[in-house]
């Protein structure tokens, strides 16, 4: 089966962004996922976020591992460069790519199997290095593509379609990321585009590793009664901790007319992320408090959502490595090769 292109009908009245592009331009080829799969809604949110941020398509690099979730980069931004790699290893590819070209905008798409089992090591180390990227973890509690085995994010007591119950404690990517020192941690629900889109926009603007863990029900293998990652369960137990609004740099003045009790965090490029606490006293810039709150809700069987934590001025990979501001791929060869005289001088020491 080859991939299917979408019919390219352009509606004359479609809204255009600053680049003169419509949201259709930010789409990809037709999804081949199951109808109703949570991943497709995330794809739609990604498309909208990139469109609203006026991102030039070819300056985006989209990467993924293997899984149903990892197939989705084909379904958005068809004019961006993409890399569908191998199972669990997308973080290392993104790290190397980012090391070589720091000027592109990176989005990595992964699943809970891809990130929390086979790729757990790479996931953690990309966080440690604070690789400047948006990391979408499309979390359905199962391995979709291999037909429904439990993943490491399955909750205790969650039932598989065939009936068996998971008894091992889950790996929660959000709390893991917090303990690893992640500089941006958010959680959302694929069915809540209103919450998800501003989070994606903030994550794309954040300099550093931005984890967005999205509960994304697998309608085929994990949407039944007894599953804790089903649409019904997530709708019922999702608990928005903070409401997030992303304000790009140029719109700031208008947006200041917003409602009262908000916290504003200024990003490295001057854009602003606003939080309105739903839970009283929640401070998304306090790592320990965020962690504690997450655990507290978890104990009650609730899933904290929203932009849970942000540290806007952290050091990223390039700051750690002290690399030049210019992307390494653009440094001319003459600046890289020391030449014959230096070689002779060096060798005069090797006697």
């Amino acid at each position: 089966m080859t991939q299917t292109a979408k019919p390219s009908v352009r509606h004359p009245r479609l809204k255009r962004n600053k680049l003169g592009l419509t949201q259709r331009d930010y789409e990809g080829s037709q999804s081949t996922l199951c109808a109703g799969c949570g991943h497709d809604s995330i794809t739609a949110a990604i498309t909208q976020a990139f469109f609203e941020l006026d991102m030039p398509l070819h300056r985006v690099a989209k990467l993924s591992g293997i899984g149903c979730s990892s197939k989705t980069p084909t379904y958005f931004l068809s004019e961006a460069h993409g890399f569908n790699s191998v199972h669990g290893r997308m973080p290392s590819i993104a790290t190397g790519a980012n090391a070589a070209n720091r000027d592109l905008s990176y989005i990595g798409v992964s699943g809970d199997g891809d990130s929390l089992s086979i790729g757990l090591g790479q996931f953690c180390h990309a966080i440690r290095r604070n690789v400047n990227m948006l990391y979408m973890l499309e979390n359905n509690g199962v391995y979709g593509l291999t037909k429904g085995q439990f993943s490491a994010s399955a909750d205790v007591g969650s039932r598989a379609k065939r009936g068996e119950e998971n008894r091992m404690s889950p790996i929660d990517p959000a709390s893991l990321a917090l303990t690893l020192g992640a500089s941006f941690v958010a959680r959302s629900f694929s069915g809540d585009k209103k919450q998800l889109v501003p989070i994606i926009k903030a994550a794309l603007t954040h300099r550093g590793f931005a984890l967005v863990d999205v509960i994304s029900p697998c309608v085929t293998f994990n949407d039944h009664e007894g599953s804790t990652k089903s649409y019904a369960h997530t709708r019922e137990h999702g608990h928005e901790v903070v409401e997030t609004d992303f304000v790009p740099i140029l719109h700031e003045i208008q947006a200041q007319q917003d409602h009262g009790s908000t916290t504003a965090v200024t990003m490295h490029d001057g854009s602003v992320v606003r939080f309105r606490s739903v839970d009283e006293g929640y401070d998304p810039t306090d790592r320990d408090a965020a962690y504690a709150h997450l655990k507290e809700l978890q104990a009650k069987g609730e899933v904290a959502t929203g932009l849970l934590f942000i540290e806007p001025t952290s050091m990223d990979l390039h700051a750690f490595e002290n690399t030049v501001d210019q992307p390494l791929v653009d440094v001319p060869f003459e600046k890289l090769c020391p030449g014959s005289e230096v070689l002779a001088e060096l060798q005069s020491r090797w006697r």
Partner: protein
Amino acid sequence: MDRDSRDRTDDFVVTNDFVVKVATVNGTGSASANGMLMQAIFRMGIPVSGKNVFPSNIQGLPTWYEIRVNKHGHLARNPDVDLMVAMNPKTYEQDIAEVRPGGAVIYDSSWPLDEELFRKDVLFFGIPLSHMCVENFKGDRERILMKNIAYVGAVAALLSIDLEVIKGMLEEKFSAKQHLMDSNNVAIRLGYDYATEHFDCLLPIRLEAMDANRDSVLMTGNMAAALGCVYAGATVGAWYPITPATSLMDAFRSFCAELRKDPETGKNLYCVIQAEDELAAIGMVLGAGWMGARAFTPTSGPGISLMNEMLGLAYYAEIPAVIFDVQRTGPSTGMPTRTQQGDLFTIAFASHGDTKHILMFPADPGECFYFAVKAFDLAERFQTPVFVASDLDIGMNDWVCKKLEWDDAYVPDRGKVLSAEDLQGMDAFYRYLDVDGDGIPARSLPGVDPKGAYLTRGSGHDRFGRYTEDGDLYQDVMDRIARKIEGAAEALPPPEVRLVDGATVGLVTMGGCRGAVLEAIELLADEGITLDFLRVTGFPFCTAVEEFLLSHDVNIVVEQNRDAQLMRLLLLETAVPKSKLSSVLDYRGAPLSAEVVVGGVRDRLGLVPVEAG
């Protein structure tokens, strides 16, 4: 080798043709003392090699250093020891037994040597090194360190190494640390003076200055390969520490710290990432290569094993990458600090499914430099991983090498990389379309132009880069990649061939076996056995390799692994019949010696050794 084949001067003293072996305990600082000894001989203009035989351990286990001096330039390992510097009582017995009759032993006479260890056919020089160091230095650490320097002084006296040469080296090394220089100078004199005062020069071996090293330098293969990466313009390196590859990245880092700072900002014009494992290291290299950077990873066998899945991805998605495989013994952890050529099978066809990779086999540090540069050119030209397979002996030991040269007119071969203008001028861009008929499609780099965008993938794709599960479309791409890789055979550095009149037998080898095999050819020529020589430098094999094999009645393949991996690859990949091939194998983990080759060839040819006359 037969002692009597060596040139003798007056009174049975052999000049510039002998082996000194130093037996010590690792972690005591002896490695740098031994290096000094070798360096001093090098500075006297005499051909010399040094082989470090060390345990996989940080402190407390036996370690040896073998120095071979040979005025004819034969510098392969020679296990025939003339002078043993026995500094480790735990290995006295074995060390003393290794000395050839008529040879000599230096030992620490601070404690009496067990009567049973003395041999009548060997000279013993006892020097109370520990006592002298206790008297002259303070603190355990300094006493231990200075004992090494003191035996260097004693050996210098006994072999007539110019003391000024050693003092000069100490000055260069410790110019910034006066107190270290002082102690070193004292220690050198302790050993030197003791030896001069107590022994008339009775040693059957000695050094005499020559002028053979004027155009040479001392370097390790890992240093040279790292420098090759700098000169080739590599900007991204990722790695996970593993002996014997670690020093390659260490060297790259220190060269870059000196040579790769942006003059204006002082920031780095390179990025070295210590990965969490080799899976990540190769992933980073692929990410960077995909972006258009020259990227590499140094590793050894266990790392290669971990990289396998990604290597298939790189092959199939056609991403350039350079992998340095500094080989050590396997399988598994094997003997991690011993040398071998055991990774051929693994790297030639690394990963599942049909793959075949471009390999290069440098024979010495000089070639590590040139091959490193070439590897980046080939990786980008053929858009595929290229392996530079050296080994522990080449990578970690100091070799005397011809000075490296650099042509300032060198321009990197970036292969078919499309610029924004190229892309704009095209009707449509298809990543895997073979426009030129050479199996190499053009590639676009991310971020350059919207027209160049495509999805790189390890899953089935057609020549247009589109996902497919159609067997014909899949096969079309696989066949094209096979053609592309075959095309690399003639682009690799040519093999080294040496022909003599009338020879019908060829000795075939690769990599670090070169020296031992060439020496064996000379020794056998003295016995009237003429042999042609072929050194394979790359894979896939070029036609010159096949022609050589076909034109000889017998080809004896000399290599350092159990399974005759090179021989079997030749059988698989050339038209040579099995009946024309045999092998000489040594996989004990030490650098190859001519002795083994000579014995093996005599055996394969059914010859009786010539009696030493």
